[in-house]
């Protein structure tokens, strides 16, 4: 047992619903801990498989302990545990037993629990007691779990849509306006904005999405046959906004560029020339009131790399396979005060019409997708 504290916490959760002297409770907690130990490249799979068989033979009393064991579990373990919950719950219902809905409801209501686990609890409540699920979801428009929140927001959107269809334009607009701040999923935000535009209340979508909009851009640097993706050009060695460097077609300097449109696109074609086999950089400063964990969310169809405060976060050398909002999510840590963001963006040799774009979009959010704006200096 590598982590006795985790084991003891699990055991305590299990003992809350199982007989305190139960060897079964100890066995269950050990099995759960075995599953939570799965790791990369199949690590722990064989042991987890044996543990999973034991867990999946438990009855409904084990559901909440298993859900609790999802707290702090890695993504792989979450899927192992999800499958166990589904197996037990389906078997209980199939054999005519009832699920422990009050306990599942209590678990769901505790927003400190893992969002996936809470959603799973909700889905089984919905199967066992649809009325209870309807009651619960209605108040979840501000839920920290994306899926629960989405469903709650959707219900409000449906109500607004009904008002719109019934010709109650003011009522519809008011409903859409009130639900917009709660929406996090891009498709819901765009649907609400579309409806509000029809109702004469256009929304400034770029502000809703919260794009990082003020950038300084430099390029083009020569990148023959994609070699620039790995090549270290001067901006990667240190930012000097007054510097001048040798570019592909002469000297290059930093230029100010504003993200454009609802989708916050930072276009390098304009400042750097619509060229092929080139690399460029975009630099932004972001002020945070306090240090905090964030996500940098990038959309880009060119090859790219991102650094936050000089620390490399991720890069990807794929070209022109598509772009969407929040295509890539990178965990980062903002420090209090000024932070720096550097994006490297490369253009390849393709010449088809659909390969002209040399652009990206970036925003900073929490893990739910709530945009975080730069604080005033």
């Amino acid at each position, binding site marked *: 047992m590598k982590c006795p504290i985790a084991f003891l916490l699990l055991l305590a959760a299990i003992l809350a619903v199982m007989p305190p002297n139960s060897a079964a409770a100890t066995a269950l907690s050990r099995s759960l801990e075995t599953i939570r130990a799965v790791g990369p490249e199949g690590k722990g799979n*064989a042991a987890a498989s044996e543990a999973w068989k034991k867990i999946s033979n438990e009855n409904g009393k084990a559901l909440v302990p298993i859900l609790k064991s999802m707290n702090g579990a890695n993504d792989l373990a979450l899927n192992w545990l999800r499958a166990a919950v589904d197996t037990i719950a389906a078997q209980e219902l199939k054999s005519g037993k009832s699920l422990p809905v009050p306990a599942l409801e209590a678990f769901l209501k505790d927003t400190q629990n893992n969002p996936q686990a809470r959603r799973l609890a909700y889905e089984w409540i919905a199967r066992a007691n649809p009325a209870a699920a309807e009651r619960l979801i209605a108040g979840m428009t501000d839920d920290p779990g994306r899926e629960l929140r989405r469903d709650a927001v959707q219900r409000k959107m449906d109500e607004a849509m009904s008002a719109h269809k019934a010709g109650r334009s003011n009522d519809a607009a008011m409903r859409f306006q009130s639900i917009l701040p709660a929406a996090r999923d891009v498709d819901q935000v765009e649907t609400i904005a579309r409806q509000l535009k029809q109702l004469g209340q256009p929304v400034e979508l770029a502000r809703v999405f919260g794009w990082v909009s003020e950038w300084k851009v430099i390029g083009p640097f020569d990148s023959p046959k994609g070699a620039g993706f790995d090549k270290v050009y001067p901006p990667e060695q240190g930012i000097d906004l007054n510097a001048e460097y040798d570019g592909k077609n002469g000297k290059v300097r930093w230029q100010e560029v504003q993200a454009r449109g609802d989708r916050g696109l930072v276009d390098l074609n304009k400042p750097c020339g619509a060229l092929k086999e080139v690399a460029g950089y975009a630099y932004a400063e972001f002020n945070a009131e306090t240090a905090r964990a964030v996500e940098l969310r990038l959309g880009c169809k060119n090859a790219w790399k991102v650094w936050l405060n000089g620390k490399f976060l991720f890069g*990807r050398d*794929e070209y022109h396979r598509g772009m969407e909002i929040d295509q890539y999510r990178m965990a980062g840590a903002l420090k209090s005060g000024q932070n720096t963001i550097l994006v490297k963006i490369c253009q390849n040799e393709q010449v088809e019409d659909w390969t002209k774009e040399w652009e990206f979009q970036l925003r900073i959010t929490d893990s739910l997708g709530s945009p975080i704006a730069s604080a005033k200096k």
Partner: protein
Amino acid sequence: MKTTLAQFALFVSVSFAAGDWPQFRGPSGNGVVNDPALPTTLEAQNIQWAIDLPGRGLSSPIIIGDRVFVTCSSGPKQDRLHVICFNAKDGTKRWERQFAATGRTMSHDKTAVAAPTPASDGERVFAIFSSNDLVCLDLEGNLIWLRGLTLDYPNASNSLGMSSSLAVTDGVLITMVENDSESFTAGLDVKTGVNRWKLDRPKMANWTSPVLLQSPGQPTLAILQSGKGISAVEPKTGRTLWQYTNGASTIPSSTVSDGVLFVPSHGTTALEPLRDGQPPKQLWRSAQLKPGTASAVVLNRRVFTLNEAGVLTAGDAADGTRLWQLRLKGPFSATPVATGSHLYCVNEKGLLQVVDTESSQGNVVSELDLKQTILSTPSISRGAVYVRSDGKLWKLGKS
């Protein structure tokens, strides 16, 4: 149609039974089976059952015994992954398992996260998704292992979507995760999911699937196709035995029939593997046998290719000579499947056309409009064709 040597070899290397359809394009990976009970015309009265599916998918159903396995994805980001087992008899659900995608789920609208077809060795079902989540379940739905290949290899993805199906042989599950960036193919232990080998592959998008090549007196080879050509590897070790480097398609896959490999390369190129890992002998090449999205089918010593527009071309498998062409109602993404002398071709609009290939210029003998977009290759098992769309799964058999 006689059971070929290749089919026999596959029957003994894994434990699925005659009548099973355990992987993409069936037991031999070429879309052809011997199933005399399958009707040679399919019309509305042949729909034995149709059931709703909980999510999208282009993967084919696979059938083991009386169980039909289907994968789907659902949710606004298509990040809820489903593996479902139905009873073949009546379409009732035996079990369903759901997983959360741990890799990227972005894909082109025309494809889906559940694009790759699962595979089975008769004891286990292996399902992979475009997010590179790979799960192994037993036939009762018990979870044996799972992998998140994008967690392991973070740049292994394709923003248009991944679609390579799985192949299993000799206790090894072969998964092609080939793309513009972190491109590889791996052989995983079927019991634990741990890598037995991992092979760096060309950095280029690739939607083809591995096929298993069995030649007389030779061990089974895994055929990996890419834009560069073909690599033949030992399934147990990942060791490359030979390569064909004259390029190949990245969408339709190669087809094996009677130990000959029909590669979508410069039209179709027929390769005959030689002994002891020597590079294969090129038997013929025909630019007139050029497949579109659908892979070629080799039936009764004839090669059939289908282009996107719906032109079915028949060629002589011995020398590549074009024999005839028949315009079907297209467009097509799904690969035809076949038994006896009939091809079962479903177009993107859901029109299932059965073609009698023995008539002199080919002949469409029946049409069945399933009225939904279908991009998935059908499956055949025990007198029935199984077809799925984004929303439905049908069983078509004797009325």
